[in-house]
């Protein structure tokens, strides 16, 4: 079958790869209907998460049809239309049972790598490096889904493929951020990053009762999507002083909750960006944390900062003094999607969550390199390039 693969730093290929097989009794095989690029893929592309091998199949956000089931699978049948959460989690360990699904003890067959990097291993993720399990990704005709009863969810009839696709990763990641940050009724919430995850975090915060939700980005097409499809307010960080605007918008207090949905390749105007770029390129820090720094400074005293963007390792000039003295709660997580996806699909079926607008460019697998280039460079207003393997 054809697949979009990582070939090297900033090099994407389209290759023939073997079809996946059932290897565990709880596996299912899904014929991929749609598979999205994700901002976190750009960290793989740029070589910032250096546990990829040439030939690895990319993609972790997808939906499709069940093509085969293992003998222990009870919830799914061949032909079911499903969306699959991007994390591989067993559903049986203590972390899964606590709803902390991305922290699964058993979903990553390569625990030694992340134990070395972070002290403990977390669950696995499709198409996201050998540190995250080495699972083949979804930019292919078929994908193997371990723990199929846990990770695949039936799509309601009235939810389109294009909408359901983003219940795989962008939406549950946003829900994870807003919920785990403890958004309360009446809160002012600021979200750094107006891509798919940031938009979904904003929508989640609104549905959780936030009084005012503000999304910060520099791309006008993304900010327009936020205003039109999400219903949140926006700030262009290249045009205004973000902390000052946020203070004014929150009665001088600062936002109650600050959600960072940017990650390790943050941009910012001015000297800070140059400093971070130089240190990152020299590997004196692995990640550029400009948005996290700003969120910490902007957050109200006693508020919560949530790092939802992907970070890999170490950062420099981290304002720990502000965290401590302002009594901030600092949290982070990969997505605990298994606990949120049923609710998200229900909201999608009632038109309370809409995501089709994120798929600005739908194309074939053969156009994989072009899709990633457009997505990376934000060409033609690309918010997400989405691949349709059957086309």
């Amino acid at each position, binding site marked *: *079958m054809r*697949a979009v*693969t990582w*070939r*090297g*730093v*900033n*090099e*994407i*290929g*389209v*290759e*023939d*790869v*073997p079809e*996946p*097989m059932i*290897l*565990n*009794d*709880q596996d299912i095989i899904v014929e991929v209907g749609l598979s999205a690029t994700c901002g976190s893929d750009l960290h793989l592309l740029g*070589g*910032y998460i*250096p*546990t990829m*091998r*040439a*030939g*690895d199949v990319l993609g972790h956000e997808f939906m499709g049809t069940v093509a085969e089931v293992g003998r222990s699978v009870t919830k799914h049948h061949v032909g079911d239309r499903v969306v699959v959460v991007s994390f591989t989690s067993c559903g*049986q*360990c203590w972390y899964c*049972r606590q709803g902390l699904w991305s922290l699964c*003890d*058993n979903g990553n*067959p*390569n*625990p*030694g*790598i992340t*134990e*070395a990097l972070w*002290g*403990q*291993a977390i669950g696995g993720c499709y198409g996201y490096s*050998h540190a995250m399990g*080495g*699972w*083949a990704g979804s930019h292919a005709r078929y994908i*193997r889904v*371990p723990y199929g009863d846990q990770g695949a969810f039936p799509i309601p009839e009235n939810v389109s493929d294009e909408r359901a696709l983003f219940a795989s990763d962008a939406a549950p990641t946003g829900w994870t951020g807003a919920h785990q940050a403890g958004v309360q009724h009446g809160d002012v919430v600021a979200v750094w990053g107006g891509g798919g995850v940031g938009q979904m975090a904003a929508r989640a915060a609104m549905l959780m009762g936030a009084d005012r939700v503000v999304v910060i980005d520099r791309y006008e097409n993304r900010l327009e999507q936020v205003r039109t499809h999400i219903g949140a307010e926006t700030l262009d960080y290249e045009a205004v002083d973000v902390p000052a605007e946020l203070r004014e918008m929150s009665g001088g207090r600062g936002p109650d909750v600050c959600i960072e949905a940017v990650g390790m390749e943050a941009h910012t105007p001015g000297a800070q960006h140059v400093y971070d770029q130089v240190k990152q390129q020299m*590997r004196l*820090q*692995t990640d550029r944390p400009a948005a996290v720094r700003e969120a910490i400074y902007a957050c109200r005293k006693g508020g919560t900062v949530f790092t939802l963007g992907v970070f*890999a*390792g170490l950062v420099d000039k981290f304002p720990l003094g502000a965290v401590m003295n302002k009594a901030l709660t600092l949290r982070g997580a990969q997505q605990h999607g298994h606990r949120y996806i049923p609710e998200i699909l229900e909201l999608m079926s009632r038109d309370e969550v809409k995501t089709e607008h994120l798929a600005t460019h739908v194309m074939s697998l*053969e156009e994989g*390199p*072009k899709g990633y*280039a457009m997505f*990376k460079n934000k060409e033609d207003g690309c918010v997400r390039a989405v691949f349709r393997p059957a086309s």
Partner: protein
Amino acid sequence: MTSSTTVASRAARAGGTLARHVRTAFDPSAGRPAGSGQPASGWLVVTVLREESDIENSPLPAPLAEFGDRVELRVRSGSDGKGTELAARLRDQPTSSSALRRLSGKDPQADLRSALRRAKQILEVGEVLVVDPTPHGERTLTPGGAFVEAWTKAAPEAGVL
């Protein structure tokens, strides 16, 4: 067949990037990977989300049973509903090994570490998760790729458990 488009190919950078990332994962103050030491007792421990009686009354999972009397086992209730602590150590306790050997799965406890992880999976999930053979394209030989391949092969036995 590969049809690849180079956005701005910097593949040669990958090997150096990898080495630097590994280096930066080390705790500079300790001069070794953070938390990579080992307890003096020699026990390796996992917490299994099963009742203590379930574990005591079940056959020993095959990965641990294969060690026969070369290992000691200890089972005790975990704190606050977190499950049951299952510990194992080699009867002939090896001398302390370096952090690098532990993290690369080359220390004397590597096989036991892997067995303990697999036993936990059997007790909790009923089967041991396998990833290979996984679909992939052409594996181009590069220093970075060789390093990742070696680390991936060692990863099930390596770590700080």
